[in-house]
């Protein structure tokens, strides 16, 4: 197709703009005809709101799904996963199998979470079962670690205990809604420090589900030594790994930014813990990402004009179990170090190569199946179509210890083959 791609963005980041310019795309404003719009989450809300009556044409693509918040808002993510698990349980799926304590064997990857104030009473019941545990309070709609705090006493969240029937508390406003989750106080430590994993996942369609994992994820380390001691609960430098918070700590280093590549993590774990358990850990990480996407797939508006690149935050505990903490719709494109800048530049580059094939004017009716050569640093995490076709295993099979994603069997919903690979 002749003509250059016309792009718009409301996020002024060089890693984005450089990528558009290097493709020879033309910048336009949003009131003109555009083909590609990299939007902030506020803008996507407007574009797809009922009042806007916005109609995207076939040659227009945007970087968010209309109701991405089903996955990216902390309370909705948990709600959807709980719903998904219940559904599987109802169908008698082996995926929903539980152990003797009533914990899901394969789907217990989100720490116990309650919405406040709605689930306050349920939370109190749970809290009383293990009163020495620590919980983390997070505002539903904020990012970058803002407004987060830890509690270990009921009195610290008194104000959410008010009867939700009274109108004096702004429980109606979703801005003030909080989730409270069991704090993982036994994180895996490396060099005595806590860290979390940031992984990038690209979803091109939810039904059928097709998602890609970026191979170059990274670990974010806290600058201060981890201690579960209660006196340090207020020290956010110990507990929160958001770079936005760590950047202000005294020991923040601007060369490495407190970050490690996932490959370093892999090397370290293989060297100190062994290949099998490391392979299993990474397989589990892929698994929980795919399950979280499957959980929201039924409620997602699978608009064909959309794709989305998510930032997954995962914590590994000292038993090498990964936990899904949250999913970000707008992972930060700010670069804290030179390495960072390169990584994010390449991330956008590879994302665009998949979302906008050949860098040409898009046609949203295309089959969203890019050839292997354009994947760059992405690898196929899960492809529902391939998984359900014959010979699907060939595409998804990976070399031992280098997971390319769930092995062929795991992709089938019956889950029967899953159990053999896992057990």
């Amino acid at each position, binding site marked *: 197709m002749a003509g250059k791609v016309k792009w718009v963005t409301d996020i002024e980041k060089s890693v984005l703009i450089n990528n558009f310019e290097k493709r020879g795309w033309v910048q336009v404003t949003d009131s003109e005809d555009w083909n590609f719009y990299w939007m902030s989450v506020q803008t996507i809300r407007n574009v797809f709101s009922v009042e806007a009556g916005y109609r995207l044409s076939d040659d227009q693509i945007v970087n968010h799904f209309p109701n991405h918040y089903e996955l990216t808002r902390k309370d909705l993510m948990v709600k959807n996963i709980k719903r998904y698990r219940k559904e599987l349980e109802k169908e008698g799926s082996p995926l929903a199998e539980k152990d003797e304590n009533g914990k899901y064997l394969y789907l217990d990857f989100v720490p116990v979470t309650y919405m406040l104030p709605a689930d306050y009473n349920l939370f109190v019941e749970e809290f009383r079962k293990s009163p020495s545990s620590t919980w983390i309070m997070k505002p539903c709609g904020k990012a970058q670690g803002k407004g987060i705090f830890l509690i270990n006493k009921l009195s610290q969240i008194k104000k959410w205990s008010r009867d939700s029937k009274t109108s004096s508390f702004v429980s109606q406003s979703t801005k003030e809604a909080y989730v409270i989750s069991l704090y993982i106080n036994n994180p895996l430590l490396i*060099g005595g420090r806590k860290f979390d994993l940031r992984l990038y996942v690209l979803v091109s369609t939810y039904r059928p589900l097709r998602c890609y994992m970026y191979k170059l994820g990274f670990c974010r380390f806290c600058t201060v030594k981890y201690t579960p001691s209660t006196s340090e609960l207020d020290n956010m430098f110990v507990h929160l790994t958001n770079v936005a918070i760590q950047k202000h700590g005294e020991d923040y*280093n601007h060369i490495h930014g407190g970050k490690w590549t996932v490959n*370093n993590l892999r090397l370290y774990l293989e060297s100190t813990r062994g290949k099998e358990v490391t392979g299993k850990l990474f397989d589990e990480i892929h698994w929980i990402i795919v399950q979280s996407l499957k959980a929201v797939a039924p409620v997602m508006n699978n608009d064909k004009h959309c794709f989305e690149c998510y930032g997954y935050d995962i914590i590994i505990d000292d038993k090498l179990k990964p936990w899904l903490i949250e999913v970000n719709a707008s992972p930060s494109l700010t670069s804290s170090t030179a390495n960072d800048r390169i990584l994010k530049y390449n991330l956008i580059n590879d994302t665009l190569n998949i979302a906008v094939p050949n860098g040409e004017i898009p046609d949203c009716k295309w089959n969203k199946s890019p050839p292997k050569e354009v994947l760059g640093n992405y690898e196929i995490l899960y492809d529902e179509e391939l998984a359900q076709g014959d010979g699907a295993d060939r595409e998804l099979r990976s070399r031992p210890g280098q997971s390319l994603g769930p092995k062929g069997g795991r992709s089938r919903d019956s889950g029967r083959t899953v159990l053999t690979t896992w057990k």
Partner: protein
Amino acid sequence: MLQEESDLSLVIAQIVQKLKGSHLYAQLERQAWGSWEKRILKSLNSMCTELSIPLARKRPVGEQKELLNKWNEMGTDEPDLSLFRPVYAPKDFLEVLINLRNPNYENGDSLSFRTHLGLIQVPLKVKDIPELKEFFVELGLTTGQLGIDDSTQVPPELFENEHVRIGQKVLAEQDSAAAQQYVRQGSPTALRAELWALILNISSQPEDILYYEQLKTNVIQHDLLVDSLIYKDVKLTASNDDYYFVFEDYLYQVLLCFSRDTSVLGHFAYNSASPPKSYIRGKLGLEEYAVFYPPNGVIPFHGFSMYVAPLCFLYHEPSKLYQIFREMYVRFFFRLHSISSHPSGIVSLCLLFETLLQTYLPQLFYHLREIGAQPLRISFKWMVRAFSGYLATDQLLLLWDRILGYNSLEILAGKILAAAVFAFRAVNLMEVTSLAAAEAVLADLSTLKVMPLLQIFLFATVT
């Protein structure tokens, strides 16, 4: 008849020169080391005087307690280190080596040596490529290697799986010699920690742990000036490293103990250097009052902590990490910063590097010399650090596998690897016109794959 005679006398003359040279060289060596040693001690002493800090002092009880509490996070301590400077850096050491010259060699140079245009002017015998090929036969093109034959394009059944199986067998049988032979082809990541321990004969007995705890107590009770040098070094190097910053605290725990470990003095028996001595206050020159300073006889230089850093990827138990490092130091690393004629010594490595480069890449060599970018000036720092901090960790560990396997530093450090790196970037290097530009071309080795480089240089170069 005359011709034969003159040939013969030439040969004899050469032999005589060689013999003279080696005897003279040993003397030279001792002299050079002696004066270098004096220099660094002087530097240490003057730092001491300037800053009014004793070389050693006992800590008051309060301070001891504090340190004990902070033992696992000494990295968060921010003592004022601005006045401390590293006692020396690799480039200072290089200058000493360059100035190692035998005055008798001005006339009647051995023929081959007259044409040596590198910085090292010491006539040591070094292996040439055919000899290297023989020595490193397991690195040949037809033998499987980790670092090449385990890449994603190669099906694991071809080499990797079998190699892993053999490795597990070696470990099960606890066969140290077999382990050493085995890692010549590289070690699988999951087996490496155990294999290295087996090769180095480290087994973490209770007495070893006790010994480490003793050293730790020593650290708590006494403060040494070198401690500040160690802190400074870690802060300057490992803390800024993408791979090793995570392990900062382990480095203090290892290095502070290391400086107090008198058992390390044992390695001076086979090191032609001698440990630096200091004297109890007021008793200068009186042998009865001489003590080794620091207690282990090793004064750390800029980058020293990088010998320990890569090991943190393998061992996370401090006493084990300590033992492994100590053994690696007394077997290998010490040779990289002392003057000797040993084939794994830094002087030989430098000479080999220059010889290889001059012989097999003469154009590049001359070009770099012309623009004032003597190759050794660039590669020296790689070799002194055994490439730590310059290569990606997984590649570095593959390289160190081979050091252990061949019990020799010849491979890495430089000689060969450094030469191979130059060969690899030869095209770009031919185009540079300044030392700075040459440094820039070679600044980032983090993407290099060690084993393919070595193989190509050793086995595929047309001689």
